[in-house]
């Protein structure tokens, strides 16, 4: 008991220390690497509050993928040196006080919770059997609140369209440039050995997500990371934005989702309702499609748009 309390305290202190360091350290690269380390620690924290599914998502998406994304743009901090005006001391004190007030208010909410903690867990448990899946979070994502998950995938797709629409005119339709001119040999070796394993792990995490912690978002992020590794090592170039196969991969998941959702009107009386007994196979079909699409979306988001000078 005391060991776990000690561990919790150590973890929390390290996380807060890293967060402060991230804000004050001058070197942007150091701050981003700090953020990735912070993501790893935070996912341990998620395990400690009984949320392994969130922990997996945090470690893959929150820390890992976001960190890689920020690294892609780290050079811009130097390019943007003009935006370097240091705020005056009174202003910094004012902001410090206000930010502290927000933190204190949130802290007070945490320390003095309502007498009866609100929960939907009993409701989620009650109908779990009818969905055919054993992981209540998958049931929430794919059955109870499937509409939210559907909109979420569309949001990710919209973000990708937004990123693509920032392509310079001349480069439209080109391949994003991911591989550097000369690929270090260790990276090449890593891409050749890790990728097959990573693909198996990504698919496994998606499959096992029906009953255990895991799911398509976590699995898709691993697949996207493997794809990124292949592109970075120059084993395969990134697909051109105009590639038809890429675009089909991007929309196949949402398309299956919509098709099953609309057929729900006919077979089960509501949008995204599943007929009795067919919930599990339909959920698996949607998840398989979404795995491909989300992996493609995340991979292309990580690759970014083609830059000026790229020609289709």
């Amino acid at each position: 008991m005391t060991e776990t309390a000690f561990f919790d305290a150590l973890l929390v202190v390290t996380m807060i220390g890293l967060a402060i360091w991230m804000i004050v350290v001058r070197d942007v690269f150091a701050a981003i690497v700090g953020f990735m380390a912070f993501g790893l620690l935070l996912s341990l924290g998620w395990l400690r509050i009984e949320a392994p599914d969130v922990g997996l998502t945090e470690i893959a998406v929150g820390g890992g993928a976001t960190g890689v994304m920020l690294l892609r743009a780290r050079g811009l901090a130097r390019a943007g040196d003009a935006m370097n005006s240091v705020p005056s001391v009174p202003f910094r004190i004012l902001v410090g006080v206000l930010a502290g007030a927000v933190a204190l208010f949130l802290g007070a909410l945490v320390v003095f919770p309502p007498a009866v903690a609100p929960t939907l867990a009993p409701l989620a448990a009650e109908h779990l059997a009818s969905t055919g899946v054993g992981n209540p979070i998958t049931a929430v994502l794919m059955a109870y609140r499937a509409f939210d998950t559907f909109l979420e995938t569309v949001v990710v797709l919209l973000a990708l369209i937004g990123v693509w629409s920032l392509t310079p005119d001349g480069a439209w339709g080109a391949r994003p440039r991911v591989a550097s001119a000369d690929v270090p040999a260790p990276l090449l070796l890593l891409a050749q050995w890790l990728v097959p394993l990573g693909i198996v792990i990504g698919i496994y995490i998606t499959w096992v997500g029906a009953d255990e912690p895991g799911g398509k978002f976590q699995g898709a992020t691993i697949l996207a990371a493997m794809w990124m590794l292949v592109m970075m090592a120059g084993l395969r170039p990134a697909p051109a934005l105009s590639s038809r196969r890429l675009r089909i991969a991007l929309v196949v998941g949402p398309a299956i989702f919509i098709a099953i959702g609309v057929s729900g009107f006919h077979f089960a009386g509501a949008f995204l309702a599943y007929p009795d007994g067919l919930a599990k196979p339909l959920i698996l079909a949607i998840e398989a499609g979404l795995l491909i699409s989300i992996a493609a979306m995340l991979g292309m988001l990580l690759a970014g748009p083609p830059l000026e000078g790229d020609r289709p």
Partner: protein
Amino acid sequence: MTGATFDTATLYGLCGAALVGIGLFGLVLDPKPIRKILAFNLVGAGVFLVFGVIARRGAAAGFGGDPVPQALVITGIVVAFSATALAVTLVQRLSSAATDAGQPGQAAPVPPKGETGTPGQGDAAS
């Protein structure tokens, strides 16, 4: 979970609250766009953690936590990633546009492109 009990969840909740404060501080004060994005992600991490603690306190029916907020946090993390991707790309474009034009947006002189350190940008001069 009534009154001011102090348990593991409370500790992590306070950690989340502190992260929000630290992130807000950096978000407002740091002039560099990329670091604002970083700080914004810190605020997000804090908010998610506080929400996760609410989920933990809603533990019932044999689950370690209320699955509904947990699922919402998973959705939130993925959406935050998408927003970060869009923000990073916007900053990237803003920076290259300002460098090309050599004026508006960023008043002071900007180092040559070759020094930006972003792979593939070195030969991007038009």
